[in-house]
C-alpha cells in the first residue's frame, strides 16, 4: 500500500530547481503537543518493509532529544517528537535523507490529522451486531437441531434469551440504516435503507409476538446476522472513501509550499502557505512556486504560467506586475507582496466554474441506486400481495369451489414479513462495495488513486478521452529539436550553464558535459552575455534576424562573428504518451487534445502522440464548452488535465483524471489521480473499472436470481428461521467471493 510519491509534490512546470533548495524547511510545520514536546509529521517515501521501520525509528531515536519516532506503514506517515530546542527540524529530514528516504513535511492545515470517527463508529456497530449474531446462534442451533424433541418451555426460554440480546443490539447496530432511511423518507425518496429499516422493525416485532405465543418461528438470529453482513458492506464502502480521501489529502499536503516571509526586522522566516497574511513580503527564489496572489515589489524575472494557462513560453515580470498563485519563478529572485491569503487566491472564478461542472455530474446515478430504485417497489408490493393472498385467497378459492381452510391473520402477516426478511438486500448491499473495494485497492497499489466508488463506475463508461497538453500529455519540459554546428552548441551551452532558465537547461542537457563561461552575466528577461557572445531572446541576441515562422520556443545565439544561430525547443512528451493513446484507441475510446498553448505547439504534440483531433489556444471555458458539446452528442468524455485552467473541465467531464503533479484545484476536481510520471496506469484504471463494473453487474444479477427463488418460497410460507439464516449468509458469501475473483484475475496476469 506504500504510495509511490516520488514524483508528487513537484511542480510539473518548466522549472526543476535543485532539490535541496526546493525542499521546504520543516521548521514551518513543527507543532507543540500537549506534553510540551515539539512534534513533526512527515510523509516518508520508499518505506515499505520491517527493515525500513526499524532503520528509520532507531535512526531517529538516536538523535539527541528525540523521544518518540513512529512510522505508520499504511499511510507512510512518520511522527517525530523531541524536547524543544534539542534538535533542529532540518536535522531530522537530513537524517532521513542520509538513510535513503525522502521525506516531506506536512502542512498541518492541509493534512489535519483527522481521526476516522465514522469508521470507528461503523466498526462498533459491526462488533455489536456480530457479537449478538454469534451469541444468538448459540441458542438457535439447539432450537434447530432439537426440532421436535425440545420441549416448548425450553424453546421459549432460549427465544427469550435471544430476544434480550437481539432487541438492544439490533436497535443499536441498525442506527446507520435508520438514519439514512429517515433522511431519504423526509425528502420523499426511498433508498435501500428503507426496506432494511422496515425489515428490522417488522422482524423484531413478529419474533417477539411469536415468542409471546410460544411459537417456533423467531428470527432473532436472522436479523442480527443480516445486520452484521450489511454493516460489513457499509464499512467496506466507508473505508474505500476514507482511504482515497486520506491519500488525496496527503498528496496535496506534499505539494503545500512553504514561503519565506521577510519580517519587520528584516529577518527571513519560513512559514506555511496557510499563514501568509495580506501585505506580507515574501521571497520567491528561482524555482519557487508563488503560494498566493501578489505583486512584484523587487526584482526582474520570468514566470512559468503553464499551470494557469497551458502556455509554455515564459512571461517576463518586473516591479509592479501581478503574480498569480501557482506560477513558478524561473530565473531571478523576486520579492513579492501578498495580496490575498492562500485560500482566496486566484480561485474565485475557478470555484464558480468547478461548481457549475459538478452539478452536471451530480445527475449520475450509481449502479446500486439504480438497483434500489427497481428493487424497493417490487419487494414491497410482493410483501403486500403475499399478505392479501393469504388473507383473502382461501375464501376466493372456496368461492371457486376448491376446499381450503382459512389460515388466519397471523399466518398471512408472518408470511408477508418473511418475504421482507428473505429479500432484505443483504447481498445487494455487499454486491457493489465489495467489488469496488477490491478494484480500488488493486489500483491504489499501482499508484492510481480512485476517489470514490462512483468514480470507478463513471470511468468504466467513458468513450472519449480529452487530453490537456502541457504537464499532462507532456512533461512540461522543453527539449532541443533544431540541429546546430557542434562548436556553436558548445559555445552557447557554456553561457547557458550559468542560467536556471528552462530553455538554458534544455540546451545544456543537449550539449552534455562542459564548462560554464566565467564572466557570463544573466540579464533577466533578456538573456546571457559574455564578452561578444550573447544567448537569449531574438531581440537581445540577434536583433537583425526575423521572427521564425513556426512559433516554437527558441533561443538565439550569436558569438559576434558568425551568423546567429537559432535553437528551437519543443515540450517533451511523456515517455508512454503515444502508447497510452494507442491503447485507449484499442479500447474503443477516441482521443482528443485540447490545449491552452499556441495551436502550433498543440499540433506538434498531437502529431507526436498520434492524436487526430486537436485544438490549441483554448481558454478554460472553451474546454468546458467542448466537453458539453461531446456530452450533447451523447458521448461520455474523460478529461485528463493538470493545470488550473483544466479544473473546470475536469469537474464537468463524465469522469476525470489528473497526474500527481497537478495543482490542488485540479486534483480536487478529478476522480482519479495518477501518481508517478506515467500515463499508462490510466489505461489500467479503465480496464479495472470495466472489469469491476462487469463483476458488480454479475453480483446484482445473482442477487436478483436469489430473490426470485427465495421470495416465492417465503410467500408460500416455507421459510423457516434456519432457511432464512442459510440463504442470507450464503448469498453474502457468494457475492464477496465473486468480488475477490477480480483480484485473482490480476495475480495471474
Amino acid at each position, binding site marked *: 500500500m506504500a504510495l509511490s510519491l516520488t514524483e508528487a509534490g513537484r511542480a510539473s512546470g518548466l522549472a526543476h530547481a535543485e532539490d535541496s533548495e526546493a525542499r521546504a524547511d520543516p521548521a514551518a510545520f513543527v507543532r507543540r503537543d500537549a506534553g510540551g514536546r515539539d512534534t513533526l509529521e512527515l510523509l516518508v517515501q520508499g518505506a515499505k518493509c520491517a527493515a525500513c521501520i526499524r532503520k528509520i525509528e532507531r535512526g531517529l531515536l538516536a538523535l539527541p532529544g528525540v523521544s518518540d519516532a513512529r512510522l505508520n*506503514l499504511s499511510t507512510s506517515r512518520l511522527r517525530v517528537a523531541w524536547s524543544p530546542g534539542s534538535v533542529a527540524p532540518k536535522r531530522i529530514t537530513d537524517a532521513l535523507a542520509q538513510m535513503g528516504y525522502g521525506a516531506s513535511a506536512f502542512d498541518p492545515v492541509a493534512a489535519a490529522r483527522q481521526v476516522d470517527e465514522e469508521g*470507528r463508529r461503523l466498526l*462498533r456497530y459491526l462488533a455489536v451486531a456480530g457479537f449478538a449474531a454469534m*451469541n444468538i446462534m448459540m441458542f438457535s442451533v439447539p432450537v434447530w437441531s432439537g426440532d421436535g424433541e425440545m420441549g416448548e418451555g425450553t424453546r421459549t426460554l432460549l427465544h427469550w434469551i435471544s430476544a434480550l440480546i437481539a432487541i438492544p443490539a439490533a436497535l443499536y447496530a441498525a442506527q446507520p440504516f435508520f438514519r439514512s432511511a429517515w433522511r431519504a423518507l423526509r425528502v420523499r425518496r426511498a433508498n435501500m435503507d428503507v426496506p432494511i429499516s422496515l425489515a428490522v422493525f417488522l422482524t423484531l416485532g413478529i419474533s417477539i409476538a411469536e415468542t409471546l405465543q410460544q411459537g417456533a418461528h423467531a428470527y432473532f438470529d436472522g436479523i442480527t446476522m443480516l445486520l452484521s453482513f450489511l454493516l460489513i458492506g457499509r464499512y467496506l464502502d466507508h473505508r474505500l472513501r476514507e482511504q482515497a480521501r486520506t491519500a488525496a489529502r496527503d498528496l496535496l499536503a506534499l505539494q503545500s509550499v512553504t514561503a519565506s516571509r521577510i519580517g519587520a526586522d528584516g529577518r527571513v522566516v519560513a512559514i506555511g502557505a496557510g499563514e501568509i497574511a495580506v501585505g506580507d513580503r515574501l521571497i520567491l527564489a528561482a524555482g519557487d512556486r508563488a503560494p498566493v496572489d501578489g505583486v512584484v515589489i523587487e526584482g526582474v524575472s520570468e514566470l512559468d504560467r503553464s499551470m494557469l494557462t497551458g502556455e509554455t513560453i515564459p512571461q517576463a515580470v518586473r516591479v509592479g506586475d501581478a503574480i498569480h498563485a501557482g506560477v513558478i519563478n524561473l530565473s531571478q529572485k523576486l520579492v513579492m507582496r501578498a495580496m490575498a491569503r492562500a485560500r482566496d487566491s486566484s480561485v474565485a472564478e475557478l470555484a464558480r466554474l468547478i461548481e457549475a461542472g459538478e452539478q452536471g455530474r451530480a445527475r449520475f446515478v450509481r449502479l446500486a441506486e439504480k438497483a434500489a430504485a427497481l428493487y424497493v417497489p417490487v419487494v414491497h408490493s410482493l410483501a403486500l400481495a403475499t399478505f392479501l393472498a393469504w388473507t383473502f385467497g382461501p375464501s376466493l378459492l372456496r368461492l371457486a369451489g376448491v376446499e381450503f381452510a382459512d389460515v388466519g391473520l397471523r399466518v398471512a402477516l408472518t408470511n408477508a414479513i418473511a418475504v421482507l426478511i428473505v429479500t432484505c438486500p443483504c447481498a445487494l448491499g455487499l454486491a457493489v462495495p465489495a467489488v469496488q473495494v477490491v478494484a480500488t485497492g488493486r489500483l491504489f497499489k499501482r499508484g492510481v488513486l480512485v476517489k470514490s466508488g462512483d468514480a470507478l463506475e463513471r470511468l468504466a463508461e467513458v468513450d472519449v478521452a480529452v487530453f490537456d497538453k502541457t504537464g499532462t500529455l507532456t512533461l512540461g519540459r522543453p527539449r532541443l529539436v533544431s540541429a546546430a554546428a557542434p562548436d556553436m552548441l558548445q559555445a552557447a551551452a557554456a553561457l547557458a550553464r550559468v542560467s536556471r532558465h528552462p530553455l538554458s537547461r534544455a540546451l545544456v542537457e543537449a550539449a552534455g558535459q562542459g564548462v560554464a563561461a566565467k564572466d557570463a552575466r544573466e540579464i533577466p528577461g533578456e538573456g546571457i552575455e559574455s564578452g561578444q557572445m550573447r544567448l537569449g531572446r531574438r531581440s537581445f541576441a540577434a536583433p537583425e534576424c526575423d521572427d521564425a515562422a513556426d512559433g516554437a520556443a527558441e533561443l538565439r545565439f550569436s558569438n559576434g562573428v558568425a551568423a546567429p544561430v537559432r535553437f528551437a525547443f519543443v515540450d517533451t512528451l511523456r515517455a508512454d504518451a503515444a502508447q497510452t493513446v494507442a491503447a485507449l484507441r484499442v479500447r474503443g475510446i477516441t482521443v482528443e487534445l485540447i490545449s491552452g498553448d499556441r495551436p502550433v505547439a498543440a499540433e506538434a504534440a498531437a502529431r507526436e502522440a498520434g492524436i487526430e483531433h486537436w485544438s490549441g489556444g483554448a481558454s478554460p471555458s472553451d474546454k468546458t464548452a467542448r466537453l458539453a458539446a461531446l456530452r450533447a452528442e451523447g458521448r461520455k468524455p474523460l478529461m485528463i488535465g493538470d493545470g488550473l485552467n483544466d479544473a473546470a473541465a475536469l469537474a464537468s467531464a463524465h469522469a476525470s483524471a489528473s497526474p500527481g503533479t497537478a495543482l490542488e484545484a485540479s486534483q480536487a476536481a478529478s476522480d482519479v489521480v495518477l501518481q508517478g510520471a506515467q500515463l499508462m496506469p490510466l489505461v489500467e484504471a479503465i480496464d479495472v473499472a470495466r472489469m469491476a463494473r462487469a463483476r458488480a453487474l454479475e453480483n446484482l444479477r445473482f442477487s436478483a436470481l436469489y430473490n426470485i427463488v427465495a421470495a416465492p418460497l417465503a410467500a408460500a410460507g416455507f421459510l423457516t428461521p434456519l432457511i432464512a439464516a442459510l440463504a442470507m449468509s450464503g448469498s453474502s458469501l457468494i457475492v464477496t467471493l465473486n468480488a475477490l475473483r477480480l483480484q485473482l484475475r490480476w495475480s495471474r496476469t
Partner: protein
Amino acid sequence: MNVMIVLIPIALFMAAVGLAAFFWSLRSGQYEDLEGAAHRVLIPDEDDIAG
C-alpha cells in the same frame, strides 16, 4: 437442564469480555496501521540482538 442457568450467563459474560476487548483495541488505535503491525512483528527487540 438446570446447568443451563449457570452456563448461559457464563457464555454471555465471556462474549461480552471479548466485545469489551475489541472496543478497547479500537479505542487504543490498534486499527490505525494494519500493514505496519504485520511487519513490526518481524523486528527483533533491541536487547535480543546481543543474545
